């Protein structure tokens, strides 16, 4: 078990990272092969990454493998204020969602498979430039969650596999904004809330080969409440207001929604495969963002900000073509509906319905090594306002990502 744990953890330490861009704050870069095919692959065994997409599919693997991947993403948001016409850009760092999978069997063709997965299914990092018009709503949000998922999969019949993983989610959040009170110099005060969170959940799936060519997969990833119980609130305020804004502890929680996925995969020929996934994401769990401060004052009251997310569907699909020389090309795309309703658009997740396109390449170097690379592009525009803050305008975002993954199997 030592090797099994040490690799992913070393990987985490290096890539403890900021990542951005997603539907809501969901990040969908958990497998390079799936990413190449429009982020779909719930009904097909790809590699160790199926531990995420469908633990049931994993039951059909016949290998031990280690799979590491990272998908640097660059997102840029432009906010154009509807009243002044002024534009403000985000300063988004390059995000690096990653995944690491270890997949094992105790003997060849064993019905039972063991897996350990680490991945980053939720997260968001966005920083706006100083003095931007929404500075009192948000200047920076950094939300990270890393899921660790030990998994067991079992092939209960030649055509049916089931699997279940226990998910331990660790995360941290930093939220910064300015406070509309001024020093004598005219500078504005600011607040920084940070904390770490822990949550638990599960990931279960079933895989069924309907025919030689057509397979179905059903996957359910549970909702996880990420609770910050002992967060730290730090206020930079003029001395005269120190008593109004005492530094102290706060608590809050953020739901990471459940995701139900129905997938299908069709192997048209030896070379050509098509996949399709339909996600139902339980975003309705995110109705309020609440901060409960340990010490309240007349200026520092507990806050409850309405988010009122709605559950959404996303449709993803793609195909792959394998050349005889171990080279595989993939293409895909998808469309996701936004969970953010009008009136609740925030600078944290300037989200909208959006389409995206993906492409990928895979190459096998002999029996043990393979490599996959992917490309992803999306853009979206969202015009609206936030009833709580009064911020009103158009968020326009473009994002591009390139991923690379390495697999060693034996």
């Amino acid at each position, binding site marked *: 078990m030592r090797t099994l744990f040490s690799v992913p953890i070393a990987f985490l330490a290096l890539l403890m990272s900021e990542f951005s861009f997603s539907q809501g704050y969901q990040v969908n870069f958990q497998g390079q092969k799936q990413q190449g095919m429009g982020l779909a692959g719930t009904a097909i065994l790809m590699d160790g990454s199926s531990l995420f997409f469908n633990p049931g599919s994993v039951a059909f693997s016949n290998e031990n493998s280690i799979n590491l991947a990272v998908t*640097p993403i660059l997102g840029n948001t432009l906010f154009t204020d509807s009243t*002044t*016409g002024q*534009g403000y850009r985000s300063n988004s760092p390059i995000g690096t969602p990653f995944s690491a999978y270890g997949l094992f069997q105790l003997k060849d063709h064993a019905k039972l498979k063991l897996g350990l997965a680490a991945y980053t299914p939720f997260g968001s990092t966005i920083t706006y430039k100083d003095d931007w018009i*929404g500075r009192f709503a948000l200047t920076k949000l950094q939300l990270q969650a890393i899921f660790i998922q030990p998994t067991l999969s079992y092939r209960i019949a030649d055509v049916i596999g089931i699997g279940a993983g226990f998910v331990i989610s660790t995360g941290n959040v930093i939220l910064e904004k300015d406070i509309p009170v*001024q020093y004598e110099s005219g500078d504005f005060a600011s607040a920084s809330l940070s904390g770490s969170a822990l949550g638990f959940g599960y990931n279960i799936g079933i895989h069924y080969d309907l025919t030689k060519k057509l397979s179905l997969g059903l996957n359910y990833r549970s909702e996880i409440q990420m609770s910050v119980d002992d967060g730290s609130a730090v206020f930079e305020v003029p001395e005269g207001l120190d008593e109004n804004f005492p530094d102290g502890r706060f608590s809050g929680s953020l739901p990471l929604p459940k995701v139900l996925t129905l997938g299908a995969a069709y192997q048209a020929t030896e070379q050509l495969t098509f996949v399709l996934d339909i996600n139902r994401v339980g975003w309705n769990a995110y109705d309020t963002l609440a901060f409960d401060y340990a010490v309240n004052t*007349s200026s520092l009251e507990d806050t409850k900000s309405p988010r009122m997310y709605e559950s959404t569907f996303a449709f993803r699909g793609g195909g792959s073509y394998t050349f005889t020389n171990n080279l595989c090309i993939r293409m895909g795309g998808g469309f996701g509906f936004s969970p953010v309703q009008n009136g609740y658009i925030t600078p944290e997740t300037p989200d909208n319905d959006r389409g995206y396109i993906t492409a990928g390449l895979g190459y096998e170097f002999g029996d043990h090594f393979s490599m996959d690379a992917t490309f992803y592009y999306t853009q979206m525009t969202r015009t609206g306002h936030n009833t709580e803050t009064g911020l009103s305008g158009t968020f326009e975002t473009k994002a591009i*990502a390139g991923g690379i993954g390495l697999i060693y199997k034996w």
Partner: protein
Amino acid sequence: MVMMLSKTHFFIGLLMVTCFSCKPKYEAPEINSGSTNPERFLMVGGTFASGYTDDALFKYGQENSISAYIHKSISQVQNSNFKQAFTTEHSVGMSSTGLSRLILGYKTDCNNETSLSPVRESNNGDASVLNNIYTGAPFNNMSIPNLKLVDMFNEDYANQNPFFGRMASSQTTTVLSDVMELSPSIFSVFIGLDDFMPYIKSGAKDDSLPNVTNFENDYRNLLQNLTQNGAKGVISTIPDITSSPYFTTVRWNDLVLDSANNAILNSIYNPLEFYFYEGNNPFMINDPDANMFGVRPIEEGELILLSVPLDSVKCYKMGTLFPFRDEFVLTHEEQVEIRARLNGINNTIRSLAAEFNLALVESEDFFNHIRDVLPYNGIELSNEIISGGAYGLDGIRLNTRTNALFANEFLTAINKQYNASYPMINATSLDAAFFP
């Protein structure tokens, strides 16, 4: 692992190169003046429009006046001159009563408790503020602290109001005559509030309310002058200023009694059939009609003015044994009277806007939004004193931030009436109060 990382870096570099195209492009929205001519902008008004705030006229307030922000927007479409009758740089300013401006400082009360409070920056106002600076005329902001509409035609006004005296072309000129020196191409008028102010601010004791017929005649006269060369413009109704912190900070039942004081007050007032309880109680006020002693508890909805001496209230039984005098209170009856007159005057202004085809600001909507808490880009503007972020330290006049927002109301009205698209001012990062 090393190989892994270098590949990662390679990819990041590749992304950066290919990502020139993944930055959304900013396109500034089109702005235009519609059927207005932005060449010569003129503001006519009273205290609010003059830049008078924190209970004084001083340069910073003038620089951030409503008119300054209207012009800031207008000049983005077409550059133009904008002159104000500035006081000297860094002056402590001059109030209507000869005092300096208010700043936020520490004040120790009769209970020896020190807290943040508006305090005068200096013992005296800066008399040089009142020196005549007509040589800088014509001024684009012809707004004069305390200017009543009726006084625009008063030939002795330069002597009566030193804030006009400092701008006047001569001792015998009228405000209207000096206003017309500019021959505006576009104007905004926010006048009439000062016709109400002395009455309202004195608890309906001093002065009187404006006469509607006279007001209408005077206003028509003003507008005939302003529009004689075909100028377009915007005028505004008058807000009910009793929603400002000056009238809402001391609440009717802010009298908190412990058992000892409760017993004393009951022993005194029970014979009049007024009863007190431990905890919150209504203050006592003078009201000649109440009973033979002329005192009664204030009722919910009646207003106590911030002019009450707070130390007397805290330590010397004012509002209890010594009921608040008439000048510190607006009773229901007085508010109804003010409200009715305000409606009459505002209906007059509305019909004049229609008569002269002018844009109209319903200023009361704006002030009511603040009363009801106005969310603005993450700021919650309210009528809480200081912390509400909307009013100046005097509790009546707007601060820089809300001057700009109020200017946006004028711009919005102009845009609507004249098919223009003058840009709104971004008030988010503008100043409110400065804290030590």
